[in-house]
């Protein structure tokens, strides 16, 4: 895929890259480290943080056992009552933290994939990660009859193995976005067939349990899921943010990026590995939650109007989307607790549709 033809498969907008880059101001922090900060992006990110804070507060205070905000705060600093401590620190906080981290990981990974494949539908599914993770988990659940961490491990092995396979199959003098997409489609199709086969050939109760895992859920998640995810984010996020600028330049086309001094092949490899690892950690913690990786970057981009990577905004949007969805999943059909994956699609889909319509009305989008 040479640069001129690339324009074809790339519906990402190009107008205004230069405009927006000229706006905003550069913040320099020491030698060679500088960040462009743009007013609207900053405002949006602050707004998202505020909204996140509000959702976290609501999630921690409400439920079968309502606790007031001051009580929650007291509990958080270690001054609360016994019962509050159990509910806030033992049940609600870990779940909220897992949701926050998973959403953030998926949002960032999705933004990276959309940039690398230069496709607004690009998401970790593109490299077969999700189908592979599901296959791994289904084999553990339905064939080996394992459970718990074994499922997570199966998902990790399946997803990671698939990602490596797709990557290897699509390298031929560097990975090209278009070939990566098509190889990913092919490999995913095989795995999807295997998944369907496993689901139709097992007892209906087992299959339904497996379906629950496939949908992705935060029920019963705690610190043991949050910790590895948090560590992973702390390591991988800086890597991605540092590659952010080269990533934005890739959007101009390989040749242009190369001319501007970007090592195209290396940048792609680094960000793909990092984004895949983020997806893997998220799937281990909560299962392959659909649509967050796809919707969060789209929503973030429409909120900020920024063309570039927008990784921070995408991560925050992902976290907000997941937390709101989980809140709804717990409360809407109480006492039945739906898995959060059911709701991300509804919330994310409807909100994306709403954004598309309102933005197009104004002639943007």
């Amino acid at each position, binding site marked *: 895929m040479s640069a001129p033809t690339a324009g074809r498969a790339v519906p990402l907008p190009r107008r205004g890259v230069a405009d927006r880059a000229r706006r905003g101001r550069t913040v320099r922090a020491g030698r060679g480290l500088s960040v462009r900060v743009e007013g609207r992006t900053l405002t949006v990110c602050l707004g998202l943080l505020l909204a996140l804070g509000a959702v976290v507060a609501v999630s921690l205070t409400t439920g079968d056992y309502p606790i007031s905000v001051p009580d929650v705060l007291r509990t958080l600093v270690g001054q609360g009552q016994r019962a509050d401590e159990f509910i806030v620190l033992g049940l609600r906080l870990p779940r909220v933290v897992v949701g926050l981290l998973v959403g953030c990981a998926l949002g960032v990974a999705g933004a990276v994939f959309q940039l690398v494949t230069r496709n607004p539908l690009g998401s970790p599914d593109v490299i077969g990660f999700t189908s592979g993770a599901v296959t791994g988990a289904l084999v553990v659940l339905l064939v080996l009859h394992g459970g718990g961490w074994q499922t997570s491990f199966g998902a990790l092995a399946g997803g990671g193995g698939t990602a490596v396979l797709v990557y290897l199959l699509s390298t031929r003098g560097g990975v090209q976005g278009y070939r990566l997409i098509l190889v990913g489609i092919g490999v995913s199709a*095989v795995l999807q067939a295997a998944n369907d086969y496993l689901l139709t050939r097992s007892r209906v109760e087992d299959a339904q349990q497996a379906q629950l895992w496939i949908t992705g859920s935060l029920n019963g998640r705690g610190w043991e899921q949050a910790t590895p995810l948090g560590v992973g984010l702390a390591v991988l996020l800086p890597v991605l943010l540092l590659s952010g600028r080269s990533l934005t330049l890739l959007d101009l086309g390989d040749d242009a990026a190369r001319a501007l001094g970007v090592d195209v092949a290396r940048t792609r490899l680094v960000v793909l590995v990092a984004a895949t690892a983020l997806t893997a950690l998220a799937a281990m913690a909560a299962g392959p939650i659909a649509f967050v990786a796809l919707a969060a970057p789209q929503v973030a981009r429409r909120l900020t109007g920024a063309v570039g990577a927008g990784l921070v905004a995408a991560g925050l949007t992902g976290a907000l989307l997941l937390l709101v969805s989980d809140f709804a999943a717990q409360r809407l059909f109480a006492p039945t607790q739906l898995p959060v994956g059911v709701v991300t699609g509804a919330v994310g889909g409807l909100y994306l549709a709403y954004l*598309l319509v309102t933005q197009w009305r104004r002639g943007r989008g």
Partner: protein
Amino acid sequence: MSTSTSAPPPAAAPARRRPAARRRVSRPAALVTALALLVLAVLASLAVGSREVPLGTVLDALRGLGGTSQDALVVRELRVPRTLVGIVVGVALGLSGALMQALTRNPLADPGLLGVNAGAAAAMVTALAFLGVTSRLQLVWAAMAGAAVVSVAVYVLGATGRGGATPVRLALAGTAVSAALYAYTSAQVLLDTTTFDRFRFWQVGSLAGHDTTVFWQMLPFFAVGTALALAQARPLNALALGDDSGRALGAHVTRTRVLTALAVTLLCGAATATAGPIAFVGLAVPHLVRALTGPDQRWVLPFSCVLSPALLLFGDVLGRVVVRPGELEVGIVTALLGAPVLVALVRRRRLAQL
């Protein structure tokens, strides 16, 4: 995003294809070969199965001879309907896949993208869970209605606002609506075991279990859809150069998009309603075809029409044979058959892009 359609530089025009790759095979000859493949697939579909029927007997049975012998009955009552369904569903999947990819200029676009599959699935689940529908024919109609309603909604959503239905808007609108509907569907199947049990088998996609009633009832949708699809070849070629160049070449942008979307809805809706959401065929066949023919829709569409049912029927026959006396659903087999071919092609050739 509104500029994306005019963004592609002129160098992306179809004329850029390497002429060498085209000269190696002449397209008419390739089309004849593909047709021969399809005929072979049809014969295999009639003769091969858990009961092997000699070809002579098959032909006799088709001509109404052979009376009420077991073999003749199997051919007439089971295999003929199954093969007919396979042909129309195959044509529909291949055509709608090629149209979708041309319409959205997105290699990820598959017939499910306009919300067709999501609509059919949601309607199926509703019919199963709330309306107590159990007859297959009624389920087919429910799925068809769901597919139609939802894809119209997606198109309206995608076309709202200035500039009408651009490729990216359509793709995103389809994904957004599909996601919301799948949320509903998965909530239903997670809450209700009986519905889940029916749904998981429908979701794999299979040609088995229909009599000719379904075929005749769905045939008008397939026929109109196919005619509409083939008529869009020339305007879609013009639009491939971008909206502005397309307009300059005399193509009517909005009309082409509306008619293409309508054809996709008819074809894919009928196919999904009849056989379930068979993944991969509609996605992969157009890619395979473009590697053979280049991006000219006047060739891509007929080739898809022929190769897609051939793949589907071969997949179906193979599915009957490999795990005898059991059967593997065609949706599973086509993915296992087609995917390695797609991967090999992607690695070997310089692909014709959209």
